[in-house]
């Protein structure tokens, strides 16, 4: 190399940096990135149960818990068609004993959600998120959130 012609050749001192550890570190970093590459997808699963056919008896132990979010931000909670309006902040506190009761009866912990047409998606997801906060397992999958199929659209 030209640069060594000045002083390097005379004293024969290696003036280049030792690149071997540098390459080692780079290779390790590269491998780490290659391994991490399969991206982790963050999700909240929303169940969409198929419609129960008429000759199929629903589970007698299950209680249909439905949360309906209105555009005003108010929530109507209904338990087997019995409706109770509640404040948005009360949702989690309200649902906890209900879900415990469902679990005590041996049924699956499912909450149906329904929203007004113009509710923004962020509100939909935050409601689901609040419901899922009641599940204490790692993936928050013990409490299932199910979509309530709208009646008026069924006619189409």
């Amino acid at each position, binding site marked *: 190399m030209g640069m060594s012609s000045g002083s390097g050749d005379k004293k024969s001192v290696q003036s280049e940096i030792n690149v071997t550890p540098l390459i080692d570190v780079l290779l390790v970093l*590269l491998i780490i990135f290659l391994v991490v590459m399969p991206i982790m997808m963050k999700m*909240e699963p929303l169940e969409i149960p198929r419609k129960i056919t008429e000759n199929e008896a629903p589970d007698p132990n299950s209680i249909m818990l439905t949360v309906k979010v209105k555009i005003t931000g108010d929530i109507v909670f209904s338990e087997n068609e019995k409706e109770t309006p509640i404040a948005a902040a009360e949702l989690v506190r309200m649902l906890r004993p209900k879900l415990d009761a469902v679990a005590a009866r041996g049924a699956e912990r499912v909450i149906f959600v329904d929203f007004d*047409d113009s509710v923004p998606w962020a509100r*939909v997801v935050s409601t689901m998120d609040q419901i899922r906060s009641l599940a204490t397992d790692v993936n928050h999958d013990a409490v299932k959130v199910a*979509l309530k199929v709208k009646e008026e659209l069924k006619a189409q």
Partner: protein
Amino acid sequence: MAAGHTHRRWRLSGHKKAMIDVVRNDINVTPLVDVMLVLLIIFMLMTLIMGRGHDVQLPKATNYSQEKDKMQPVVSIDIDGNLWVEKSKLGPVTQATLKEMDDQIQGMWKAPKNPDGVGRIYLKADDKVEYIKVYPVLEYMNKIMLVQSVDLAIAKDSEEK
């Protein structure tokens, strides 16, 4: 300048003749390091930028579940209510675009990149889009495509409570 240059050249070649036995036999690592650095930067950028499907502003959540990418089809609904499958725009949600979405997803399920992704859909909807724009998509997936669970994409809420 030119004269000095030739002079140095001459001196250099003279040197080489004298030290003919000293052959540098280690590989030249400089280009190797260059390539590695470039690869590293590419991978770093890819991990930062790469997201599947159309890029939308995802709603924030804390109680999410996390999974490795199963290469399931990604459906997106942008802020204007347009439907996207992976990176291709299908247009506003109508029966025709939903059918188109169905066809594309069925195609992806038939030739899956990862068998675990078959029967699953990852739905990315913009956090400001109205429920009524997303609902027909969910309903279609349930009624026509017989999907019983849809994975809703969220973004990690950085300010956790």
